């Protein structure tokens, strides 16, 4: 019986958050769910992955069609779930496609932000829970381990990860090219645009120590400062605070420059020329573009940042294409192993291997015993055949009989013990 891998579920591609949250399986309920899953008919092995972006079940089954039905029922088993609604958003991958899907998810090629590293860690956690509860078997063990190694290959051989593709993350990426550590740095927010708030949020997440907030309307500055746990300062006193800031983000609606060359020269003097990163998030611009001609000041406006983000995106797409090729090659590799996990080819391969060894040994022996008569030669030949057949009889009968649950386990063991897959058979 041939086993098939099935990956079925909803992800951010296929389903809105309202659907995903209905199906989500909480960590506390995971073990119970895993036990329920593998107790279902036609499901031999199962792993559940439930993150904020996807709820997916990966299963191995000897009867794919029936298993898909079962899995749909499993996902929609809770009472509050509308089965038809789920069906509309469900994606089902089978066989080769399921393996490819799993590899792509692990390599973060299917993520909302392609290349983000969290998904691999989450997958490992969920797989380990499944392995601990015994719901993952020979096939899924190998499949998940393979997906982790694919992810590693993609990470080291392509540049898919670590590219800032949004404007605010590009700003943070640049910050890290100027400053060694953000932990002793102060950022200043002049004005309160959505984009600059996002950048401030990113910077704080990366460990910026303190935030100074100012706005023409002081109350707004106070509100923002409270939100970010920053310090509000009056707009009129901005020049007093400028030298404290290592990163200054401008997003006021002013139509003349909030920061002039002269002001920056002064603040640099007071900073003893410690580098300043100026991010101008507003149109019309808040910071005089000529500021960039000063030494130790780095001024980026919104176009510069989108240029950076854009080139990162192009880069990432090129790298993603390379990553997809890696995935395809690895899927082929895995499928070869999986196909081998079939009774008939395994028995044939086992017999062939034994027969080859027998022939070689007979030839060697007979070559050194030239003065044997034909009768003796035939006797030796017959004896060798008998030994091989008797030795193989047990394993082969067992393999044929084990068409039940653990077939793949027996097959994998047989192939491993007799080294049928060569040296690389894990």
């Amino acid at each position: 019986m041939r086993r098939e891998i099935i990956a079925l579920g909803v992800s951010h591609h296929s389903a809105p958050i309202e659907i995903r949250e209905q199906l989500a399986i909480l960590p506390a309920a995971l073990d119970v769910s895993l036990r329920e899953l593998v107790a279902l008919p036609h499901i031999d092995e199962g792993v559940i992955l439930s993150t904020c972006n996807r709820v997916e079940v990966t299963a191995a089954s000897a009867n794919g069609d029936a298993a898909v039905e079962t899995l749909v029922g499993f996902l929609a088993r809770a009472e509050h779930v509308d089965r038809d609604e789920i069906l509309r958003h469900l994606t089902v991958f089978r066989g080769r496609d399921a393996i490819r899907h799993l590899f792509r998810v692990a390599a973060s090629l299917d993520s909302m932000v392609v290349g983000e590293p969290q998904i691999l860690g989450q997958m490992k956690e969920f797989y380990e829970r499944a392995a601990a509860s015994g719901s993952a078997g020979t096939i899924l063990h190998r499949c998940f381990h393979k997906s982790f190694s694919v992810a590693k290959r993609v990470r080291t051989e392509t540049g898919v990860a670590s590219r800032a593709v949004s404007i605010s993350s590009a700003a943070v990426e640049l910050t890290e090219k100027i400053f060694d550590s953000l932990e002793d740095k102060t950022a200043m927010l002049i004005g309160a645009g959505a984009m600059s708030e996002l950048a401030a949020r990113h910077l704080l997440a990366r460990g910026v120590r303190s935030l100074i907030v100012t706005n023409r309307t002081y109350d707004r500055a106070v509100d923002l400062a409270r939100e970010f746990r920053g310090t509000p300062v009056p707009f009129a006193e901005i020049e007093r605070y400028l030298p404290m800031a290592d990163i200054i983000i401008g997003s006021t609606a002013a139509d003349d420059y909030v920061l002039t060359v002269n002001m920056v020269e002064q603040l640099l003097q007071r900073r003893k020329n410690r580098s300043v990163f100026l991010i101008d998030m507003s149109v019309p611009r808040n910071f005089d573009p000529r500021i960039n001609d000063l030494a130790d000041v780095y001024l980026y406006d919104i176009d510069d940042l989108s240029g950076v983000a854009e080139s990162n995106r192009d880069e990432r797409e090129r790298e993603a294409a390379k990553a997809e090729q890696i995935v395809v090659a690895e899927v082929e590799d895995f499928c070869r192993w999986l196909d081998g996990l079939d009774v008939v080819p395994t028995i044939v391969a086992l017999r062939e291997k034994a027969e080859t060894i027998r022939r070689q040994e007979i030839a060697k022996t007979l070559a050194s015993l030239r003065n044997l008569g034909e009768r003796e030669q035939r006797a030796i030949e017959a004896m060798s055949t008998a030994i091989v057949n008797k030795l193989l009889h047990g394993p082969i009968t067992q393999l044929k009989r084990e068409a039940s649950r653990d077939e793949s386990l027996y097959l994998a063991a047989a192939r491993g013990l007799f080294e049928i897959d060569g040296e690389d058979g894990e």
Partner: protein
Amino acid sequence: MSSLFLTAALALYLLTTITYGAHLISKRAQLRHVGLGLMAGAFAMHAGALAMRAGALGYESLFPFQEGLSLIACIVVGLFLAISVRTDFSVVGALVAPIAFLFSLSAFIFEAGPHGIPPELHSVWLPAHVAPAFVGYAIFTVAFCLSVTYLVQERQLKQRRKGDLFRRLPSLETLDNLNFRFVTWGFALFTIGLITGSLLAKETWGALWSWEPVQVWSLITWLLYAALVQARSVGWRGRRAALLTVFAFALLLLSFLGVNLVFPGKHGGGGS
């Protein structure tokens, strides 16, 4: 045997240069580790070659100009390996490797005999002069590489260009801080070398200071590095400090090469 090790070190320096070069233009992150491994191998070979030479001919045999350059190169590589443990300084490595290659090449081409140092200079002050001076030179060499890297990174940031090279570069602040630490240490050792050098001169020639070309040039270089160490407190950091470091190193190199090759004077280890 010693020259066999030196040949191996030279070959490895060349290979390291190529690897780091490839690392900077390709996207293969693993090349960084290959480069570092090659550099460490080259360092081991180089140190082995120097140790064998010192063992066979006495440690003074490392002090003549050509051997001295090779010894300095070896210290430079050691310092680079030390700072690379925690931070990716591949771009700096791409500068260190060819410099180490060229410096060691001098020892390979013009191997000085055991008598490179005039016998009248053999004194306790000789190692006390040469050791800090050489380590100081090596530190200044690394500072130079850090500064060039700083200037490259600074230019990339100013021009808003975002190549792959950009990604490989450490942050400006990292480079600037390390540069300052190196310059400070280098300056301290250089100062010690200058003082012990004068004491050596007094013992050999009877005068602490005799306006030898080597002394004049060293003094000029010393003043420049003194200015550089001071400059930071008045705000000469970042780009200006990097430019000054590059300039000071050029002067150092000129005085070291010029004094030894053009006006050898009485200073030991002339280019024979």
